[in-house]
């Protein structure tokens, strides 16, 4: 994305005023996991937003939010909000990229105001990697051989980031692809989980997400998974932080169970989309 | 499981290279001869009636023709050579192949045997179904039929021994390491076959049977474990010899194979630098013994 030259770019040394906030004395240095756990959850195992550890945030899904796109979807997972637009299939533009199979192009972008810290207009390294992860996950789900020599573009724009953006993006993208009638083997459902030493928090918010700046004394990590529920296949798997394989197994179980619960919701949303479409077609036919 | 060694512990491979009588070595721009009456061959150029080298390598003289054989080269085809190539493109009436030559080689539809006998006419349907016979990525053994003006090779597979290759393992070595022989197809006594392409592509596969070769069918059944072992060992022997710049032909490969078994090396041991030199030295000793 080209830089907008009309807009004044803040000096590079600018930083968010929130960093000047007074923090606990030990917040800057290493935090003991027990303290961290106390910060995130109270003694009754209730999170700050009144959820139980294994509860996910309320989910809202909608298709057809961008009228001109072939398919589009909007997802709201608590305060994490993002839009996905799908364009294509159309002929591959660059001839050097010729392939007999169809190709996916994914762009993952955070809106400049979506995070606590301002994001640049240009795709930064993190966004590039997220785009790649999204592409690899969707490639496993989309029947690419159905549209040879053509490309499909999937654009994700995060409007508000309150944790687990990749998980939300995976669900949203597969919903958008489905609403664009791109053939797929299965829906992709994204989910994330936060590991605290003795506790797992499903669908973490920004505050609950694992952050590298804290030196943890015990195992702590974040896991995002893209799961295809009907095929029982994992098409995205990103883990950051320290864990043992056994803990990862536990985390994976929780996440896939959650995905199985989300699947009917996405299906319902798609069903409504199709019904709406059929209804409007019916009206048109009646008009004739 | 893992073998990490320090660079200082790793032997040099070159010590094994055959050092026969000194050869006339030249570098680009060095004078080969001032005498006139010689013919200018590959790797040389003429200036002021003197002959200069244009590549680094060994001067070779055949009667009045002087040429320089470069130390490293892509494959220069000669008519009648056995080569192994990989299909890179299917175009009209022809396949294009990568044969380690400067230009892609060509296999014309008319120079392959299609199912149904040698005298079958090529119809328009054959042209359309070329990809069913050979598609991108497939390997074929073939013979150089002709060399075009631009140096590209035209191949043919009109013999039962040539054709599409099935399961096995391809090793790429420098073309100059392949010794020219009467036959480049060998059924080795260790239970595997080897095709030594003149272009430096060596194909190792389960023993070939005359009656099945030459077709367009690939056998995708599982290869027995014993055969795989033989193939893997041969593969490692070929790469070991190639790394030590030893000539490759059936006898040298079998010597390496036997030596590795006699020394009690496991197959994966042959990837280790010290074992590679050891094998090469053993092969050389064997040859010296045979000479006496």
């Amino acid at each position, binding site marked *: 994305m080209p830089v907008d030259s009309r807009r004044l770019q803040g000096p590079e040394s600018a930083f968010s005023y929130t960093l000047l906030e007074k923090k606990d004395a030990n917040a800057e240095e290493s935090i003991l996991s027990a303290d961290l756990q106390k910060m995130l959850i109270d003694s009754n195992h209730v999170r700050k937003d009144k959820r139980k550890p294994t509860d996910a945030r309320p989910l809202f899904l909608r298709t057809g939010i961008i009228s001109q796109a072939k398919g589009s979807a909007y997802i709201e997972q608590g305060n994490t909000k993002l839009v996905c637009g799908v364009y294509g299939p159309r002929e591959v533009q660059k001839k050097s990229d010729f392939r007999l199979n169809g190709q996916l192009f994914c762009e993952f972008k955070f809106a400049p105001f979506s995070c606590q810290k301002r994001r640049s207009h240009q795709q930064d390294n993190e966004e590039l990697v997220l785009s790649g992860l999204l592409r690899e996950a969707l490639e496993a789900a989309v029947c690419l051989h159905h549209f040879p020599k053509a490309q499909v573009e999937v654009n994700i724009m995060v409007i508000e980031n309150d944790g687990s953006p990749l998980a939300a993006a995976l669900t949203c993208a597969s919903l958008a692809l489905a609403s664009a009638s791109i053939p797929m083997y299965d829906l992709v459902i994204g989910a994330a989980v936060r590991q605290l030493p003795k506790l797992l928090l499903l669908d973490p918010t920004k505050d609950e997400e694992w952050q590298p700046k804290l030196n943890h004394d015990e195992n702590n990590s974040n896991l995002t998974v893209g799961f295809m529920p009907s095929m029982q296949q994992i098409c995205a798997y990103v883990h950051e932080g320290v864990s043992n394989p056994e803990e990862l197994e536990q985390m994976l179980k929780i996440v896939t169970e959650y995905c199985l619960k989300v699947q009917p919701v996405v299906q319902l949303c798609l069903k409504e989309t199709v019904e709406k479409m059929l209804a409007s077609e019916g009206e048109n036919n009646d008009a004739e | 499981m893992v073998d990490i060694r320090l660079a200082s512990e790793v032997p040099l491979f070159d010590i094994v290279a055959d050092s026969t009588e000194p050869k006339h070595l030249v570098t680009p721009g060095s004078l080969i001869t001032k005498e006139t009456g010689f013919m200018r061959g590959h790797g040389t150029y003429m200036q002021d009636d003197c002959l200069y080298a244009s590549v680094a390598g060994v001067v070779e003289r055949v009667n009045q023709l002087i040429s320089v054989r470069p130390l490293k080269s892509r494959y220069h085809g000669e008519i009648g050579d056995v080569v192994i190539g990989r299909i890179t493109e299917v175009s009209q009436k022809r396949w294009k192949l990568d044969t380690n030559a400067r230009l892609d080689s060509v296999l014309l539809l008319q120079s392959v045997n299609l199912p149904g006998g040698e005298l079958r006419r090529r119809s328009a349907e054959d042209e359309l179904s070329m990809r069913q016979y050979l598609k991108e990525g497939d390997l074929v053994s073939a013979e150089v039929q002709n060399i075009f003006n631009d140096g590209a090779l035209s191949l043919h597979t009109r013999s039962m021994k040539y054709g599409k290759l099935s399961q096995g393992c391809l090793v790429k070595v420098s073309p100059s390491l392949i010794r020219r022989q009467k036959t480049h197809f060998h059924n080795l006594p260790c239970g595997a076959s080897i095709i030594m392409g003149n272009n430096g592509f060596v194909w190792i596969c389960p023993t070939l049977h005359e009656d099945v070769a030459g077709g367009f069918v*690939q056998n995708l059944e599982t290869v027995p474990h014993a055969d795989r072992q033989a193939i893997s060992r041969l593969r490692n022997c070929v790469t070991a010899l190639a790394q030590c710049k030893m000539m490759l032909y059936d006898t040298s490969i079998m010597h390496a194979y036997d030596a590795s078994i006699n020394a009690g090396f496991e197959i994966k041991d042959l990837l280790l630098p010290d074992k590679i030199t050891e094998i090469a030295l053993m092969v050389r000793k064997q040859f010296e013994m045979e000479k006496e």
Partner: protein
Amino acid sequence: MSIAPQLLRGPSLMAEILLSEAEKAFIHHGDDLRCDGRTRLDYRPIILETGLVSNASGSSRLRLANSDVLVGVKVELASPLSEKPLEGRLEFFVDCSANATPEFEGRGGEDLANEICRFLQMSYMSGDTINLSELSVLAGQQCWVLYVDILILECGGNLYDTVSLAVKSALYTTQIPSIKVATMDGDQPELELSEDPYDTKRLNTQNVPCLVTLMKIGNHYLVDPTPEEECCSSSGVVVAVSGSKKITAVRKIGSGSLHPESLVSMLKTASEVGAVVNKILMKKLLEEETAGKTQKVGFMR
């Protein structure tokens, strides 16, 4: 166990090569015996040398079969990031030059470089791997920045593992000069560099992670895939395993998918393999260090 829909195209982040169906079948059927005689959990031989680059604070060159990686670490002073005032930092940069393979020409290698870079960053971020507060010089004002530049000289498959081993070796040898904060003269604290060039400290690299790539082929998975094997596989995982056998980062690679069960067993295997690799690498590095000044081999072979 169902197999994911097989896609014709191999993982996008590796150099693409052509293979025939039969060659792929041959690799698929290998029953714990790979084409080069290795078992599924064997690495190809690795050759290592450190301290090659005189201008770098730490350097290493590592060869794994045909993959060749040169890493140089430069130590510089900078002001710490505003959100982490008490820590220094590591900056990775991967250069996939066109020398490695012609496909990297132009911007060809950029995506791969980016992915490796980002994954290294991810795997080094957790507190278990490297203590970044050791790199702080003056809280909130000055810290050490370790620029880890990774040059890929040749690409012969399995870049993740090769790069991580080379980076670990380079960090092991990195010398950080001693610096003293002199007494506050007025408001400005003064930094004083030790006069003795040998007065340096080293990082504790015991727990620095090694990356282990596992590629899934058929119903099995293998470590250290050759380019041919990468071509046969549609998915795999890269796992960062720290010296204490813990997993510090994971990501799935390739355009295929994996069954949860096989994924879990891959993670377990990776952590076992990673621990062994780490141990052997540390042993070798110590060996080289105690051997003292031997003739450097460098590129003269």
